[in-house]
């Protein structure tokens, strides 16, 4: 399924919050804006998530020519992890979640391959 929206995720989230506040104020002052009040944030969140996937996909596409192929990239991550990654943060992440944390994804992988991992929320 093709889902495309313009703008950045932050624009949609910010817009959703502003519209919710505006509709809330209008509802409190006697207007019949309840449907809009309830719908503004979910719709904005849908658009923000789509926009976030687009941003990630765009960035992956941009980064690929600079970096390596997927197989070479994996080798590169391992090599880099042995030389540059902080062993303390690595062991800490493994202890807490059993998988590489967002810190590593944002440093070692990014520098080597141009790929990134989604973060927690």
């Amino acid at each position, binding site marked *: 399924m093709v889902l495309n929206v313009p703008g950045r*995720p932050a624009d949609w989230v910010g817009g959703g919050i502003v519209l919710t506040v505006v509709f809330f104020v209008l509802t409190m002052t006697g207007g019949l804006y309840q449907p809009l009040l309830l719908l503004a944030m979910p719709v904005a*969140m849908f658009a923000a*998530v*789509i926009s*976030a996937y687009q941003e990630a996909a765009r960035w992956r596409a941009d*980064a690929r020519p600079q970096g390596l192929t997927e197989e070479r990239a994996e080798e590169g991550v391992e090599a880099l992890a042995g030389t540059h990654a902080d062993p303390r943060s690595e062991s800490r992440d493994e202890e807490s979640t059993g998988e590489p944390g967002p810190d590593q994804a944002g440093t070692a992988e990014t520098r080597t391959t141009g790929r990134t991992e*989604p973060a927690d929320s």
Partner: protein
Amino acid sequence: MLGNAPEWPLDSPMTRSASSGPSTLARVLTGPPGRLLIPSAAFAGLLLTYGDSVPGSYFMTQIVGALLALGVAVVWGPRFVVGLLRADGRPGLRRHWARWAAVPLVGATVFGLLWFDVPSSARFALSKASMEQIAQRIAAGKEPASERRWAGLYQVSSIERSDDGVIFYLEDAGFLDRYGFIWSPKARVYQDLETAYKHIEGPWYEWREWF
């Protein structure tokens, strides 16, 4: 000066790709629920469960819990649906399925508990023996307490003797109406325009006074 030199040259493919990665918000929105969303869902569930544990419920606790639950749903739902619809989102859902499942699991558990009235039944069952002791002492002639105190697991604003038993007024329960329990071994409680009673078990009745 040399000691402060950056590890990577300022203008290299390495630093370019490091600085132009997806924004933190984009990474969060495309990632699985984690340190914020799952605890928030659990906290909302706790608030809703606790708020529903007294007759009439704790109004403000319920409002805060419901708003938090709504916020969690608004953040979780679009991320899950879009992740499911997009080909580049599905691997993430499969890889972190337990974290994605945690939020609806919490929601279903809380919904089930509230639907079957488990919080209020459990709280009453745990408090009954203690409240019965207090009621019997007051029925035997002891002066009832007019100040705020604990009766079992309930905080009561006052306890009063009536013609047919003992009334426990619950603190903070309900929005405008007053709620409480009546211990009436003679089973004589009278319904009128201002009050309503619901039999719980044995000599115990749930009591409500309309605003």
